[in-house]
């Protein structure tokens, strides 16, 4: 076979650089002597955004603390223990140590008391309404989570039911507020009035239907007006609002229980409830984290509570009495705050609310995420 020379491959001549064509960003930068590549730009942009998120938290804490300083200086620790919230000055006759009015030259001596701010009623309100919400929501949520994990997959309803329960979470809180105000409050008013008629005479339940007031120097006992707008209604609405979050997180935590655990209990002859109880016990820290997440949401919730809780800034033990939470206090009074000190006291309440919510969130995430990390590491 005659050897043929390898064919000459004709390469096209290199294209001359056209000044109109778009040049690479990096080559433009190189021509100008800058060592700035798109890599560095994106790296710094994204790093800056992450720092911005850190900065957001720091700004939140710093700005609120600075704005609360006048109130902190004026009231100190008594802010947390005093029950008196009075944004206005009070003129009253001065009373001597024996309780009688002091007379000078035949006239009453009027003293002016400065505004007094104490956050104990709203701290009490937030604590009790959140506790009521959890009391209502936790059994329902755990039951629903067990249903979703153990029963629903077998009858193929887990996806629709999960979707419906998560749809509860998407409803804005003002919708809950309006529903509560116009539907739940009249219903509860009817229920409470009939309870009042039937149970008010029972000696052990006296505290539920009567409250004691300080009028002048004497204490008076008055029946609580059953308006339906009270702590009970606030707790119920909050409970409905935290149902989806506790259910969703509990469902995720319970579905992470290894099948071997459940099958082991069943092999030992456990009933359905006994093996479910074992599941609950196994994931108790994750469930506790779910409850804390619900608590964090319940304590920070504003609009629904403001509309149904009655806005009475006093500590009354009965669940049928109107109350006030920290967030509803802020929603009601902040836009109409009468003085710098009033506003500063409100910002101090906001700071307490923020720190409380941060503490719950951090604890919840540590419990839920920590448990998952430990489970993942163990398997």
């Amino acid at each position: 076979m005659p050897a043929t020379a390898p064919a000459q491959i004709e390469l096209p001549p290199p294209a001359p650089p056209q000044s109109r064509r778009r040049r690479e960003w990096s080559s433009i930068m190189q021509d100008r002597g800058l060592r700035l590549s798109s890599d560095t730009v994106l790296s710094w942009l994204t790093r800056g955004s992450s720092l911005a998120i850190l900065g957001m938290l720091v700004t939140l804490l710093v700005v609120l603390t600075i704005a609360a300083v006048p109130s902190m200086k004026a009231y100190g620790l008594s802010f947390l223990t005093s029950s008196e919230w009075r944004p206005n000055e009070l003129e009253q006759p001065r009373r001597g140590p024996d309780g009688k009015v002091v007379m000078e030259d035949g006239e009453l001596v009027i003293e002016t008391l400065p505004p007094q701010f104490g956050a104990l009623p709203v701290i009490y309100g937030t604590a009790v309404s959140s506790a009521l919400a959890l009391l209502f929501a936790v059994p329902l949520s755990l039951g629903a989570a067990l249903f979703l994990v153990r029963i629903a997959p077998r009858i193929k309803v887990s996806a629709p039911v999960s979707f419906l329960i998560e749809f509860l979470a998407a409803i804005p809180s003002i919708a809950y507020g309006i529903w509560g105000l116009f539907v739940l409050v009249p219903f509860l008013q009817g229920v409470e009035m009939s309870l009042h008629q039937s149970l008010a005479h029972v000696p052990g339940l006296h505290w539920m239907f009567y409250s004691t007031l300080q009028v002048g120097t004497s204490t008076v006992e008055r029946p609580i007006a059953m308006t339906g707008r009270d702590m009970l209604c606030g707790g119920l609405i909050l409970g409905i609002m935290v149902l989806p979050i506790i259910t969703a997180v509990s469902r995720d935590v319970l579905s992470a229980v290894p099948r071997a655990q459940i099958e082991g209990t069943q092999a030992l002859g456990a009933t359905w409830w006994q093996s479910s109880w074992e599941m609950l016990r196994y994931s108790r820290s994750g469930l506790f984290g779910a409850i804390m997440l619900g608590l964090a949401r319940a304590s920070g919730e504003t609009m629904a509570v403001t509309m149904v809780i009655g806005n009475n800034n006093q500590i009354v033990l009965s669940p049928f009495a109107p109350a006030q939470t920290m967030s509803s206090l802020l929603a009601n009074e902040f836009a109409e705050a009468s003085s710098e000190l009033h506003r500063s006291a409100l910002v101090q309440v906001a700071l307490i609310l923020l720190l409380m919510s941060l503490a719950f969130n951090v604890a919840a995430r540590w419990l839920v995420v920590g448990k998952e990390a430990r489970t993942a590491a163990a398997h």
Partner: protein
Amino acid sequence: MFVVCVLFTLTILTILGLVIGYLIWIGAGSLSIKFFTELPSGKVADPGGMKHALIGTAVLIGLASLVGIPLGLLAGIYLSEYSREWWLASPVRFISDVLAGVPSIVVGILGYELLVVPLGRYNGWAGAMALAFIMVPIVARTTEEMLRLVPHSYREASLALGATKARTILRVVLPAATGSVVTGIMLAIARVAGETAPLLFTALGSRFLTTNPNLPFPSLTVQIFTYATGPYPEQKRLAWAGILVLICLIFVLNLAIRLTARSVRVAK
């Protein structure tokens, strides 16, 4: 006990049914075309409509998205792509989660102190920035989750072909996750559309149609709150109609989110 769990689930579904049912039933009874086309008339017996509030909410969400979405996207890209380079990534992730749980009224107070006090009056910028504050952690976390779902082989192939890291992220990873990232953004918008508390003392709310953010700005949620807690029954009916519109908006957004997510998974 088995029966108890089923009963509890049915109770939750009944509560959901009661809430949604009443909202749709009473809302539908109060809704009319006047709601969308008229401005508040100032008359007690015939309060007009909420056109100003609808436009106000749209403008506020638009302004908030202008700031919140880019910031959240970039932070999410950092958390998913660059997290191995710096020790600060996991604290930022944690703090991002924690920030998402801050009560929205506290965010409103921050907006007041930072943007209302210096300017001397309630304005729409403060409201929009308060909403952006709420949006950023949500967008960052969902972007990070969605970008993490993109298979590593995409990145490795792109880097093997000689692309820089920035080009890999912008031209390969982000387009692969576009549907999911848009889902996250819509989630944030749905959340922010229903927020009332941050707007209460930043934008304050107004009865007038305005598109100037330097003035007190109307919004659907604050207007509903004002009408619902007021004494006039006609205004309360308008508040019900507003709630129905708000819920429909959020429901449509959630539906769009689910459809987009499903189509993204099918496409892969």
